[in-house]
């Protein structure tokens, strides 16, 4: 089976790289862009199992996200 994991910065956490992307987009004429937050996206292939979702969450808690600054969302395809 395949799962998608999105890891994004919590609100309020400084994202200077996201800010630089806003500047770049504005520079290209996309003046409507007011904010960008950069996150991470994981495609995970794993064996099917009854507790796959719980185990994916455990993966996020333990390694894929640092919950001090990041939140995560799991989608199972």
């Amino acid at each position, binding site marked *: 089976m395949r799962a998608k994991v999105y890891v994004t910065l919590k609100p309020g*956490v*400084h994202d*200077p*790289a996201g800010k*630089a992307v806003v500047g770049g987009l504005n520079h290209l004429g996309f003046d409507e862009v007011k904010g960008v937050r950069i996150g991470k996206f994981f495609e995970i292939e794993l064996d099917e199992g009854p507790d796959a979702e719980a185990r994916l969450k455990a993966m996020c808690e333990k*390694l894929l996200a640092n919950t*001090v600054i990041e939140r995560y969302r799991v989608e199972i395809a």
Partner: protein
Amino acid sequence: MNRRVAVVTFPGSNCDADARHAVALHGMEAVPVWHKDTSLGNVDAVILPGGFSYGDYLRCGAIARFSPVMQDVVRFAEAGGPVLGICNGFQVLCEAGLVPGVLLRNSKLKFLCQDVTLHMEGRDTPFTRNGGVDIRIPIAHMEGHWYADDDTLARVEGEGQVVFRYVGGAPNGATRDIAGVCNARGNVVGLMPHPERYVEASVGGIDGKVVFERLAEVLS
């Protein structure tokens, strides 16, 4: 008897030799420990050195934190043993939850390699002393912006867990100019600047010696 200080080498560590040199220079025995070792052996303190463990993949320190040796480092820290994390070692300590907060990318997105002045404050630890003299030592990092949520920040400040603060502003954007923190118990310390690089006048300075002198004194 010589006090033994473990210096852990992860794949990508590059300040481990400097850390061992600084330990030996202050009359202690530096014990090299490989990240795949499952035990620290019989040691009196542990240093996690600077570098780029596992290429900083995913997040700095995130993968090193699960190296086999880290289980024993956590056990040692929880038993009250002195543990110092420098630069990448600090990032590993944060990822392991042994010290509060996290290190974000520098606010100006630039690798910073320069001398900084630090004020030593907070509680006494095995590596620092409240009211110690200000020291000037180098930083060399891309992710040194210390950050914690408001509750954690209030607790860290209130409990004297800020042990190093940049004087004249943090070049990396660190919250409240925080350069180094300790855990609630005070035995685990992490800092971004490199005391081990300034222990000999011939390479730029000796201000880093106070950290190792303090450890030698505490262990004696």
